[in-house]
């Protein structure tokens, strides 16, 4: 065996080609959302009603949102699907709002799982686990406050509806989205192919929904992957700039920009975990980055709403944004309130570091057992 000092050259796609690819993937994502919508519409009215009967209870909807997001490890994907379903008219805004909130909680599972990777080093694990769970606690507290408020007053959906009315028209009307026109052709081709092989009604609708889901998930996965490649150097540079001297609002803005760029809050929050574990960033500096990521990730649902044919889809996308912004306004500006998720995360990390099995139990319980039990009880 011989050794050499040469390192293999990296094969990288030219930026221009990758940018075109990302645009094509975004187009594919919008086609996927439209396929989903068309598939549901093809199904009969009875099937549509029975499909979403189980989530008419808001608590069940919340847990479905958590479970769905945990399953696909992406709130961008789950909220886009929810927006697509609202676009069909089969899922109402009222039922979709708790699901969107659930998606916000479910998305935190990814960075919590990443933090478990540091388990062998106690101190590193403590910092990593606290950095991951501060996101969990923030989202759970925000949902605990804003879901009851929404159920009682309908404030979030009313505010989103008001904005949506201004932008695309009133609820119940048909919105002539330009994006919808661009994606109409490929959706028609897919439908024709399935019809040619003899599928109709529920079978046709089901296969179109499945195709739509696969296209949405694949497109989002590759958008995220390629965007990460495109902006990795920028992310690195800005993280260094902010970590060196910034905090608070600046860190929040950075979290937002990175997440909008890569279309994934999980990427943003997961990047922060090794930094927390290494002690490069403190928990209090990571916290605002994750909050920025919460807001940034809502861009995907808004994008998905562009391919929907009902203004309600945009309303739900806006609910996601308003919910996260309101959460920040409620829980971040006042120091004593801001400290609550931080202290809870630190407390949990202290326990987790001494009894590591509890950390795993926490993840399984919060992200699987409780939502499954919740769906079983409340549906």
């Amino acid at each position, binding site marked *: *065996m*011989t*050794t*050499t*000092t*040469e*390192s*293999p050259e*990296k094969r990288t796609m030219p930026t221009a080609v990758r940018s075109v690819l990302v645009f094509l993937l975004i187009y594919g994502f919008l086609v996927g959302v439209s396929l989903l919508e068309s598939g549901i519409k093809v199904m009969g009215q009875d099937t549509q009603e029975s499909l979403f009967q189980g989530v008419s209870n808001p608590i069940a909807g919340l847990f479905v949102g958590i479970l769905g997001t945990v399953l696909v490890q992406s709130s961008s994907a789950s909220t886009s699907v929810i927006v697509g379903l609202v676009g069909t008219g089969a899922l109402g805004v009222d039922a979709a709002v708790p699901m969107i909130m659930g998606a916000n909680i479910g998305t935190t599972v990814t960075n919590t799982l990443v933090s478990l990777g540091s388990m062998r080093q106690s101190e590193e694990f403590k910092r990593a686990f606290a950095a991951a769970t501060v996101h969990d606690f923030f989202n759970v507290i925000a949902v605990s406050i804003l879901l009851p408020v929404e159920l009682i007053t309908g404030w979030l959906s009313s505010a989103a509806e008001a904005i949506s009315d201004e932008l695309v028209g009133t609820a119940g009307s048909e919105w002539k989205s330009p994006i919808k026109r661009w994606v109409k052709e490929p959706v028609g081709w897919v439908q024709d192919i399935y019809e040619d092989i003899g599928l109709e009604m529920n079978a046709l609708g089901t296969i179109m929904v499945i195709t739509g889901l696969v296209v949405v998930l694949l497109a989002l996965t590759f958008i995220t992957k390629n965007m990460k490649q495109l*902006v*990795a*150097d*920028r*992310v*690195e*540079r*800005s*993280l*260094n*700039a*902010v*970590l*060196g*001297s*910034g905090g608070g609002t*600046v860190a929040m*803005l*950075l979290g937002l*920009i*990175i997440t909008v*760029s890569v279309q994934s809050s999980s990427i943003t929050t997961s*990047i*922060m*975990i*090794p*930094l927390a574990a*290494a002690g*490069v960033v403190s928990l209090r500096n990571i916290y605002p980055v994750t909050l920025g990521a919460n807001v940034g990730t809502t861009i995907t649902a808004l994008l998905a709403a562009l391919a929907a044919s009902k203004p309600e889809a945009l309303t739900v996308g806006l609910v996601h944004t308003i919910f996260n912004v309101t959460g920040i306004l409620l829980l971040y500006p006042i120091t004593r309130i801001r400290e609550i998720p931080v202290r809870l995360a630190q407390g949990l990390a202290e326990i987790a570091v001494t009894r590591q099995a509890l950390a795993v139990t926490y993840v399984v319980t919060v992200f699987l057992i409780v939502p499954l039990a919740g769906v079983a009880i409340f549906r």
Partner: protein
Amino acid sequence: MVMSFFRRSEGGFEAITAHTVSMLADARHSFDMASTALLSGATHASVAEDVYTTDDRINQTEQELRRELVVHVSVQGTDDIGAVLAYTLLIKKIERIGDQAKNMLDLADEGVDLGSESDTDELIALRRTISVMMGEAADILSDPTNEDEVAAYRQKADALRFSLETQIRECMHSEKPGSEVVPRAILYRYWKRIVANLAGVVISATEPIHREIDPDDLDD
């Protein structure tokens, strides 16, 4: 700070390399200033502040670079892991060059002045060679692909280290008074360590990790 995301500038490993090169430039500056106090008649007081401030900057840059390397791995994954490991080592070596420059300055503080001795010109020439080697090491860091340049550098560093080792041995066996040979032996020792660290910087940058290849591939 956030706007740095939108600016067109170096990012990724290029930024880390540029930062490391600036650290090496600081180490060279410290070395040159400390040498001035020993060989060119400048007083300790006149250069001390500059050397100590530069050393603080070198230490700070070392910390910043460590953080940047962690951020790089977190953001980019393990693609550059060999280079990251190499840089973790080589920034320590540059930091040591800064410390050795400070040690040289301490000699001047002890009253050593080699500015008007019979071998002053020889010492100044040696100092210049080492200083130039710092610039060459920076060039290699910026572009480590020129194998001939790297090989020549390593040869030059080995030869210089051997020459400095010989000088140290000569001092050890010299019958000249201690006040004459001891400062020289110490200075040669510092220079030898500096050259060794420079060679280490170049080796780490150009051989981050040995890649095993199948002998069959060598035939192609």
